[in-house]
């Protein structure tokens, strides 16, 4: 899919986008009620979207791994799982930072933030399993990731109803055009960055697999000597 020569230009593009983003964000109009603090939205929301995407990537590559036993699927799964946890940390810290100003409290069990918390817990548990589960934890982890992915709608629905007592019709407001630009710019920037990091992290896993194979080969050689 990605050609070799695409990597460097994409990496440069991402760097430039991230360098440019603060200025685009500053240039966007102030939101009426929240003022400056709403600027956090320009990276909190895209990172939240990419985090949800990462959980699905992890789940789907886990399914592929269980069905086909291809190692590359497992590498992508662990990369996506780790990134889901890392991006989750960012979402869960920038959320309260924003909430403190907008709502006056650090944490208010807001539906989306709480769902992100639960999802983050699931994927931290996934990482713990892969790290401390011993041999065979790749398949076990795949099972957990699939369950985690399948759980997303349930978590969201139950937290939503729990928090607000009555299911409400969500009105999706349109962003004013001057805000739309920086927002989608950030989304694209983070998406590209995410793809790059997943590639690199999956490559690390592949190196580890190669190292394991070499160790085994070395032991075999010693045995046969």
């Amino acid at each position, binding site marked *: 899919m990605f050609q070799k020569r695409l990597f460097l230009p994409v990496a440069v593009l991402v760097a430039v986008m991230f360098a440019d983003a603060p200025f685009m964000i500053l240039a966007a109009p102030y939101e*009426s009620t929240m003022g400056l603090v709403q600027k*956090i939205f320009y990276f909190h929301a895209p990172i939240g979207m990419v985090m949800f995407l990462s959980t699905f990537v992890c789940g789907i590559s886990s399914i592929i791994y269980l069905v086909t036993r291809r190692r590359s699927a497992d590498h992508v799964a662990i990369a996506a799982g780790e990134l889901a946890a890392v991006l989750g940390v960012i979402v869960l810290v920038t959320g309260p930072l924003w909430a403190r100003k907008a709502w006056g409290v650090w944490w208010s069990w807001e539906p989306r933030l709480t769902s992100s918390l639960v999802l983050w817990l699931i994927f931290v548990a996934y990482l713990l399993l892969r790290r401390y589960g011993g041999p065979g934890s790749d398949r076990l982890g795949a099972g957990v990731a699939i369950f985690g992915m399948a759980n997303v709608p349930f978590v969201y629905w139950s937290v939503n109803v729990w928090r607000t007592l009555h299911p409400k019709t969500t009105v999706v407001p349109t962003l*004013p055009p001057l805000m739309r630009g920086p927002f989608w710019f950030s989304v694209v920037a983070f998406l590209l960055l995410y793809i790059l990091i997943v590639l690199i992290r999956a490559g690390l896993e592949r190196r580890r697999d190669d190292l394991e194979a070499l160790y085994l080969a070395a032991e075999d050689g010693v045995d046969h000597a």
Partner: protein
Amino acid sequence: MREWVVTCFQRMRLAPAMSCLVAALVGTATLHAQPPPNPASPPPAPATRPDQQPQAQTPTSAPQTTAAQEGFVPVEQLPNPQDSVPAPRLVASAYALVWLVLMGYLYSIWRRLGTVGRELDTLSRRLSSGTRRP
């Protein structure tokens, strides 16, 4: 292809990479050296509401809802303005956090790649040189 990507990242030297990043930041800063076009001049305190509203905002009852406030259950009382943390500090810490976490994660991958690469080199050298323990 992926091999090349990973090797590239592994061999990347930290100092030149950091200086490139800083240069990019400074470069785009100079490009944006004029004041921001939108006259959003009122101070960034949540109490003041600037009059100019972009027309495309969905008209609802005040306060106007945005994607940020969707799903928001309002708090009964807001604390006194004196108690709250000033907004620029929050935004700056949020932004700094994003950079720190992302850079920290990339750095940890880079370190791990280095360790694995070194082990791979030693091991393959040992295998190819044919050293065997008696």
